[in-house]
C-alpha cells in the first residue's frame, strides 16, 4: 500500500535533505495523494492487513487532500526550514494513513500511537514554555487514552479469541461472545479513542495543543487526528453492536456527544484567543459527529460521515487562513485580528467563508450533514432535538460573531515586516473551500455512491 509507504519513506528521507525540506514535503504529499487516488480506482480487496473499504476510503481521500494542502501551507512562514517539523509531519501522515487503512485493531492501535508521538514532537517544536506545557498535557492525557484503548483491544481479544483482532472476523465472532466483556471493551475503547477525538471527559488537551503548536500543525491535528480517532470508535461500535446482548453502543456515543456539544457551544462564547476558539469549535463538531453515529441507521451514519469529511476540509481551511492572519498581525488574540477583508481581500474573504462553513451555514458540506442530522434526530429520537438545536444555534452564533470580527470592520495594523500572504496560503485555502463546496453542490457520482455504501456498513 503506497499511501502509507510514501510518507513513511519521506519521513526517513527528509532529515537528510534539510535545504529542500519544504519543497520535498510538498512533493511527498502530492505523491501520497496520487497513491490515494490510485487506491480509489481499485476494487476493494477482501484480504490483507491493510484494506480499503467503503467506510475508510472517503476518510483516506480527505486525509490525502488535507495533507497536501497543509504541506503547501507549511512552506509559508518560519517553519519552512525546520527538518524536525517536516519529518514529524510526514511521519504523522504515514501513521494516520496506516491507522485508517489497517484491518486489525492491534495494528490500528500501534499506528494511532505513532501518530500521537509524531504530533507531540510537532506541538513541542516551537520550544516555548507554553508549547512544552501543551505538549506534556497532550502527551499525558493521550498516553492515558491510548493505554485505555489498548486495554479495550485486549478485552476484545479475550471476548473473541479466534478472530485475531481482524474487524470482519471480530464482527462475525461477536454475536456468540460474552456480552459483558464486549460492553467493557467498548467503554474502554470509547474513552480511549474518545480522548484523542476530543470527546468530553478528557478533552482539555485539545485547546492547548491547538493553540501552542506551530501554526500549520493545527490544521492536521484538527482535520486528521480527530477524524482517525473517531474512525477507531466506529470500528469498535460495529463489532460490539453485532451482539444483541450488549448495551447498545450508540447510547454511550449519544450521551458523550450531547455533553460535548453543549459544553463546547457555551465555552465558545468565552474564548478570546483565536486558535483556542477554533479548537473548541472542533470539539463541538466531534460532539455532533458522535451524536450522528450514536443515532445510527443509514441516515445517521451518512450524516456523521459527511460531517467528519466536511469538518476535516472546512476546519483545515479555517486554520490555514487563520494561521496566515496570525503571522500577518503578529498576535493570535481575536481582538488584534480584524478587518481582513479591507486590508487583504483574498485572505479575508477566504477565511470568512471558511468560518461561516464551520458554523454550518450553506452551501458547504457541514450544512448538509447538520441538516441531515437534525431531520434524522427528529424522526428517531425527538427529545434529542432540544439539546441538539440549542447547541447548534449557540455554537453557530458564536462562529458568525467571530467571522464578523475577524473579517469585517476597520483593519487592525499589520505586524511590522510581515509579508502579505502569497499563493502558498491562498492556494490551499481556496482549494479546500472549493472541495468542500463541490462536496455539497456537485458531488461526483462515484463518491456519492461510496458514501451511501459506507452508511450501509452496519455500525
Amino acid at each position, binding site marked *: 500500500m503506497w499511501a502509507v509507504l510514501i510518507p513513511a519513506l519521506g519521513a526517513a528521507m527528509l532529515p537528510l535533505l534539510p535545504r529542500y525540506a519544504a519543497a520535498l514535503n510538498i512533493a511527498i504529499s502530492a505523491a501520497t495523494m496520487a497513491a490515494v487516488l490510485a487506491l480509489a480506482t481499485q476494487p476493494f480487496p477482501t484480504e490483507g492487513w491493510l484494506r480499503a473499504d467503503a467506510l475508510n476510503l472517503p476518510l483516506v481521500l480527505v486525509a490525502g487532500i488535507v495533507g497536501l494542502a497543509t504541506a503547501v501551507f507549511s512552506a509559508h512562514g518560519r517553519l519552512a526550514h525546520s527538518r524536525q517539523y517536516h519529518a514529524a509531519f510526514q511521519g504523522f501522515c504515514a501513521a494516520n494513513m496506516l491507522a485508517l487503512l489497517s484491518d*486489525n485493531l*492491534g*495494528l490500528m*492501535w*500501534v499506528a494511532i*500511537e*505513532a501518530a500521537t*508521538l509524531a504530533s*507531540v514532537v510537532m506541538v*513541542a517544536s516551537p*520550544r516555548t*514554555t*507554553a508549547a*512544552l*506545557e*501543551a*505538549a*506534556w498535557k497532550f*502527551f*499525558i492525557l493521550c*498516553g*492515558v487514552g*491510548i*493505554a*485505555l484503548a*489498548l*486495554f479495550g483491544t*485486549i*478485552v476484545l*481479544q*479475550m*471476548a473473541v*479469541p*479466534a478472530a*485475531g*483482532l481482524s474487524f470482519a472476523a471480530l464482527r462475525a465472532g461477536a454475536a456468540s461472545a*460474552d456480552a*459483558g*466483556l464486549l*460492553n*467493557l471493551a467498548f467503554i474502554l475503547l470509547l474513552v480511549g479513542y474518545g480522548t484523542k477525538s476530543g470527546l468530553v471527559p478528557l478533552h482539555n488537551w485539545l*485547546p*492547548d495543543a491547538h*493553540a*501552542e503548536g506551530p501554526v500549520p500543525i493545527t490544521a492536521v491535528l484538527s482535520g486528521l487526528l480527530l477524524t482517525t480517532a473517531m474512525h477507531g470508535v466506529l470500528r469498535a461500535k460495529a463489532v460490539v453492536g453485532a451482539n444483541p446482548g450488549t448495551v447498545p453502543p450508540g447510547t454511550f456515543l449519544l450521551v458523550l456527544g450531547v455533553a460535548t456539544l453543549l459544553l463546547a457551544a457555551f465555552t465558545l462564547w468565552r*474564548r*478570546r*484567543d483565536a486558535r*483556542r476558539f477554533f479548537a473548541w469549535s472542533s470539539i463541538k463538531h466531534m460532539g455532533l459527529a458522535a451524536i450522528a453515529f450514536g443515532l445510527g441507521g443509514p441516515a445517521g451514519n451518512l450524516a456523521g460521515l459527511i460531517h467528519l469529511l466536511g469538518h476535516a476540509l472546512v476546519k483545515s481551511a479555517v486554520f490555514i487562513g487563520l494561521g496566515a492572519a496570525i503571522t500577518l498581525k503578529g498576535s*493570535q488574540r481575536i481582538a488584534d485580528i480584524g478587518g481582513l477583508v479591507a486590508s487583504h481581500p483574498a485572505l479575508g474573504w477566504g477565511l470568512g467563508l471558511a468560518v461561516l462553513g464551520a458554523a454550518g451555514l450553506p452551501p458547504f458540506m457541514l450544512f448538509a450533514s447538520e441538516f441531515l442530522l437534525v431531520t434524522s434526530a427528529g424522526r428517531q429520537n425527538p427529545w434529542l432535538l432540544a439539546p441538539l438545536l440549542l447547541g447548534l444555534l449557540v455554537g453557530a452564533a458564536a462562529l458568525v460573531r467571530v467571522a464578523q470580527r475577524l473579517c469585517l470592520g476597520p483593519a487592525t495594523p499589520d505586524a511590522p515586516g510581515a509579508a502579505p500572504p502569497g499563493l502558498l496560503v491562498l492556494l490551499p485555502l481556496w482549494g479546500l473551500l472549493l472541495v468542500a463546496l463541490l462536496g455539497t453542490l456537485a458531488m461526483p457520482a462515484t463518491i456519492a455512491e461510496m458514501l451511501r455504501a459506507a452508511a450501509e456498513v452496519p455500525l
Partner: protein
Amino acid sequence: MGTLAYDIAHVLGGAMLLCSFLLLSQRRLGALIWLLAAQGVLLAMAAGWQGYTQGATHLYVSAAIALLAKGIGIPWALHVAIRRIGDAEADAGLRAMPALLLGGAMVALAILVALPVSTGSRVLTREDLAIALSILLLGLLMMCTRRHALAQAAGLLSMENALMLAAVGAAGMPLVVEISAAGLVLVVAALAGLFGMRMREHVATLDTGVLDTHRGDPR
C-alpha cells in the same frame, strides 16, 4: 493446565499489584525506581510463565523485552538521571492512609467490573482481567494525584505493565511482541521528553505544578 499454572500466574499478578500499592505514596525517588524495576521483573516472569503454560514461544520474546527494558534498562537510566538532577524527593500526593483507601476502592471497582462481566469465560481470563484492571486503575490514580513528572511517568509505566500483563494472559493475542515494543516506545518517549534538556532548560524542575502558570488565554 493444572491449578499450579493458575496459582503461579496469580501470585505473580498479585505481587505486581502489591508493587502498585507501594508506588502510590512513595516519596523517595530512589525507592520509586526500585519498585518500578521490581514490577518490571515480575512482569517478565509472568510473561515467561504464560509462554510456558500456553506453549507460545513468542511470549518469551516479550518476557525478554520486559526484563531487559523495564527490569534493568529504564531503572538504570532513571537512577543516572535523578543523580544528575539532584532531586531526591517528590511530593507524596496523597498521604498513606487515604492513598491506600482509594487504592482499595480502585481494586474493588476492578473486581466488581471484571467478575460479573465474564461469568461465561475461562477462570484465568476473568481473574487476570481483574488484576490487570486493578493495576491499570492504580496507575491512573497515581497519575492523577502526583505532581512530580517522574511520579506521573511512573504511573504511566505501571499502567503499561498492566496492559502487558493482560496481553500475555489473553490466549492467542496477535502482535503481542509488536505491541509490547510499541508500548515501550511510548514510555521511553515520556521519559526522554522528561529528561530531555528542554524541560530543564526552561523550568529547571520536574514539578509539573510550575507548568500550570504557563498557559495562553489566562482567565
